[in-house]
């Protein structure tokens, strides 16, 4: 192995060179000349890449559909306002590749009855509203066949809840109804062409089941049914009186209301009259005439006091035996022949030896599904 040996002069030269190098290095570092030299240093340069990402709407995502107004029970009554059930709202958002804010619209069709029995329910019976989740919130509005804007500028990664009400028409026929729902989304930031708008179709996605309903109204009078003051009868010649005139419970109109969606029968019954003063007056029967033993209180569907039939004073005159389409009378219940707008007259006969005093009692009217027992 050879060892490089330097002479003394050579060592001095090396030492000198190193010293010079160190001095120059320190000078450059400390004087800031490094940055001056740096600008003259060769640089490796690349080309600039300009990328433009277009606005895009991917797909509409809807959760918690259909819009079911039927509720948790057997169905809904007509003539009321109901909410979507069981969840009260839809959630609407856009899938992940959507990168721009969007506007939301909605339209709806009629709700059509199954088998065509009943009239369609118009979409204007449906009200929708939303908080629009930070977007521009529009007022609650009724739906229509045409698209109606619900929200503006929903963030691309946001979703919003949509709440529904249905005002079921008064008297709507009992049936199940189905309708269609359409959600439309677009954006002014989207590039033209595919991805600038999206549509979600929900066939049969609005539904409601309407149940049988009876609405019954008895405008007996705003004043008592009053027979004034009578004297007890003697033997078989009981005095009687008609309750006629506006201060005596006339007329008493029994009406099946317009929210009723089935055919009905009306029945009436009475209780015994009892002493109002608390005295031991006893009671006497006003049961409205169970054939063949008519009671004291009688009823007629005469149309005016002038036509009050002097020979027809007991309900049993209008009694009809049960038949294929007519239920007839029941124990304690008397059928009212016409099921709507029946002016009622009341006649009472006082039994013999009735004690002096004031008496009161109840008359109850009941409406039932046609041909069923009251």
């Amino acid at each position: 192995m050879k060892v490089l040996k330097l002479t003394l002069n050579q060592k001095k030269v090396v030492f000198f060179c190193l010293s010079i190098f160190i001095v120059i290095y320190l000078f450059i570092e400390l004087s800031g000349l490094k940055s001056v030299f740096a600008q003259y240093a060769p640089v490796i340069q690349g080309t600039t890449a300009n990328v433009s990402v277009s606005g895009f709407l991917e797909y509409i995502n809807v959760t918690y559909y259909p819009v079911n107004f039927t509720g948790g029970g057997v169905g809904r009554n007509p003539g009321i306002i109901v909410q979507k059930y069981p969840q009260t709202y839809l959630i609407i958002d856009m899938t992940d590749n959507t990168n721009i804010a969007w506007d939301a619209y909605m339209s709806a069709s009629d709700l059509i009855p199954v088998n065509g029995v009943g009239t369609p329910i118009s979409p204007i019976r449906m009200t929708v509203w939303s908080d629009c989740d930070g977007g521009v919130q529009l007022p609650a509005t009724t739906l229509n066949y045409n698209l109606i804007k619900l929200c503006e500028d929903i963030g691309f990664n946001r979703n919003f809840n949509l709440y529904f009400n249905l005002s079921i028409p008064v008297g709507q026929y009992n049936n199940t109804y189905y309708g269609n729902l359409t959600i439309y989304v677009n954006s002014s930031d989207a590039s033209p062409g595919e991805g600038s708008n999206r549509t979600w179709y929900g066939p049969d996605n609005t539904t409601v089941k309407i149940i049988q309903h009876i609405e019954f109204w008895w405008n007996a009078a705003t004043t008592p049914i009053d027979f004034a003051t009578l004297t007890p009868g003697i033997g078989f010649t009981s005095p009687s009186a008609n309750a006629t005139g506006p201060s005596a419970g006339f007329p008493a109109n029994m009406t099946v209301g317009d929210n009723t969606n089935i055919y009905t029968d009306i029945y009436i019954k009475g209780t015994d009259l009892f002493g109002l003063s608390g005295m031991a007056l006893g009671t006497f029967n006003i049961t409205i005439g169970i054939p063949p033993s008519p009671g004291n209180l009688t009823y007629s569907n005469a149309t005016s006091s002038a036509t009050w039939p002097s020979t027809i004073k007991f309900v049993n005159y209008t009694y009809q035996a049960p038949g294929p389409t007519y239920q007839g009378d029941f124990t304690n219940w008397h059928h009212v022949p016409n099921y709507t707008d029946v002016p009622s007259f009341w006649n009472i006969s006082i039994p013999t030896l009735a004690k002096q005093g004031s008496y009161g009692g109840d008359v109850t009217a009941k409406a039932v599904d046609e041909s069923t027992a009251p």
Partner: protein
Amino acid sequence: MNQQRLKILVSMVLVSICLVSTVNALGLGPLSLDVTIEKGKETDLIEYIGVLNPETKPIHVTATITGSIAEFVTVDPQEFDMPAGPGIGTGLPRPSQDVKVIFKMPREISENRYTGEIVFTQQPVEGGVLGTAVQLGVKVNLNIGKMATAEMPIYITGLTVVLIIFLIASIVVSIMRRYHE
């Protein structure tokens, strides 16, 4: 003759009759509930009845249960007030009250059919003697069916069949061996 006249005069005391009445109205649905519950199963079942007020004044409604269902059925609320409605013929929505019908069936109830009615009676909210009332009712048919039989999973059935086949086969084989010996 005079005594007869006296009797007549004595008996002719005054009697006044008054049937207090006001406007009465009520709406109701459904009109029937048909419920079937399995025998041998302690069950709490809930249905709903909607009561509506079409009248232009507040009303007070009470519910009563009649018939053999009364033992098992309760309603909540049993008595309630309702705000004024829009009036009949207006075509406007009515205020409504959902009444909860609770069927509470004990396990030991016998197989049978129970019937009855939940009757709703409207009365004026204001006090006084009630002369007229309007009633509407919901017919209830409650059927207690046969006890439910649990279905065995298919794999248990299959395993049982295989075991039976093995058992029969082993018996046959053992008999044949003895026969050959």
